[in-house]
């Protein structure tokens, strides 16, 4: 997430609402990086749900 958003640190309360860089384009880049890094496949519905840090973590945990 740090790389995708070009940020120094990523706090655990980051979400699409409070992070300007986390727009739809960066979201897809993030998802594509996560799919690659964890070797998982996310469905479009699941991708749409991952709107903040805790939901991303929860989704990853459910997949691993």
């Amino acid at each position, binding site marked *: 997430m740090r790389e995708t958003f070009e940020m120094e640190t990523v706090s655990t309360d980051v979400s699409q609402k409070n992070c300007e860089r986390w727009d*739809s*384009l960066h979201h*897809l*880049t993030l998802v*594509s990086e996560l*799919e*690659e890094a964890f070797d998982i496949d996310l469905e*479009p519905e699941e*991708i749409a749900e991952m709107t903040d840090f805790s939901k991303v973590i929860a989704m990853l945990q459910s997949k691993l």
Partner: protein
Amino acid sequence: MTTFVFRNQTIEAFLGYKDMTYSGYDDISQVPSDVDRYIWFYQVPVNADSAQLADEISSYRDKLDMVLAGAGGLKPFIILSLVNLFPLRLTGNESAVEEAIASFNSHAVALSRQHANVKWVDFDEFTSRYSSDLLVNWKYYFMSQTLLNPKLAHDFQAWWQQVEAGLRLQRKKCLVLDLDNTLWGGVLGEDGIDGIQLGGEYPGKAYTYWQRSLLQLARNGVILAVCSKNNEQDVQDVWLNNPHMVLKGEHFSAKRINWQDKATNIADLASELNIGMDSMVFLDDNPAERELIRQFLPLVEVPDFPEKPYQLMAFYRQLVEKYFRVYAVTDEDRAKTEQYRANAMRNAEQSRFADMESYLYSLDIAIDVIQADEHNLPRIAQMTQKTNQFNLTTRRYTIDDVSQHLDMGWRVYCMSVSDRFGDSGITGTVFLEPVDDVTVNIDTLLLSCRILGKGIEEAFIKTVFNLLRLDGYRAVRADYLPTPKNGQTADFYDRMGMTLEVAGEDGSKHYTMALDGVFEIKNCYNIRVL
């Protein structure tokens, strides 16, 4: 540098965000002028109706023309070729879409030949590495309008960096080759002329393809040289008598075939060819030799050499992409091998004459001094980028920079030189910046190193002085700015009779001179002003 990208799909993940502005999807209504360059990167849209799709693709050609006209002829304009990532054919003999794509691509290539600022980049070079399943990711397409798989973004960026490096003209000039197990299989000294592996079945066949490929490098302006531990007579024999040999003595501009260490030999080659070691690439199958060169000559590029002969073609492609790619090969580049060889002959000739003057007479040197125009502009800019040794100020200019200077009233001349051994082409230039009505400043003066040693630099600058005087100028200013490579020009203006006004601590020098009389030029040169 800021870039504006014309696109019809979401490609931000590939070209990135930094200093990039993107058009709307297939939106050509805006051609912003406050950017440094333009990129055209369209994808073939997804449409199962192939007649409709072909029509849409055909419209890109007109759109590209309009955008190009709006962008003007000065700023770099990069066009990526169209590639059909997802070919759909209902019937086997349907080709409308492919024809529309081919027609767009050949139009783009034609544009890059007509306009010096237009560069054509073959996107297929990237996509052809992947299977169609990997190239397209439908999930991402439907979610964000990007047919090209975002998972290839890292690979794309690596490829794009190489493309950009090529666009900046960072190509190497010379490829230095070992012989045994590098240009052919086996060891000549042990296996003999007919025992080495070349031609016929594998592995000889792989070396034949390799040699043919290297020959293409030579034909496109890369200088080939040999550095091999062998008996020179054996090598001459194999060049003469092995019928499978593609690359022979005449294709190499310089050779070091002896038992001396290769670091000394390569340093010798650099000075014989008059090029810097940072423009050389060395190939050798022996890791110890490669290590030696890396240690002693760190400026020389030394890639690892493939273990197996069947890897040579893939290796050739890497070589081209990494070191020898340029986006506009000029005729000058193509003729270069020939010119370096003719130089070697001239050097041999020189030893037969007792004095320099009679040698120069015998060469029938013709110098044409030509004003900069649209035909020679790319070459002039290229020379400012590449010339290091005889370059008084080493200022690097793009084609755009030079045109801007011309618009501001600068005079730019170039010089084309030939003699009885061959035509060296455009090999020198001078940029004159008017200071006031009677004074000019020499902003740039450079000559390609392959024509040095014949007093041509003196004849050229004196011709220019005489031209300036005829046009009413009365004084000249000039600078020498030292670099690690241009030491030979440190006292050039002193020798031309100019007056040293200021000498800086960094070694720079500032000169002036009055233009009050005709500058005598030796009459062994046939000089024309065009």
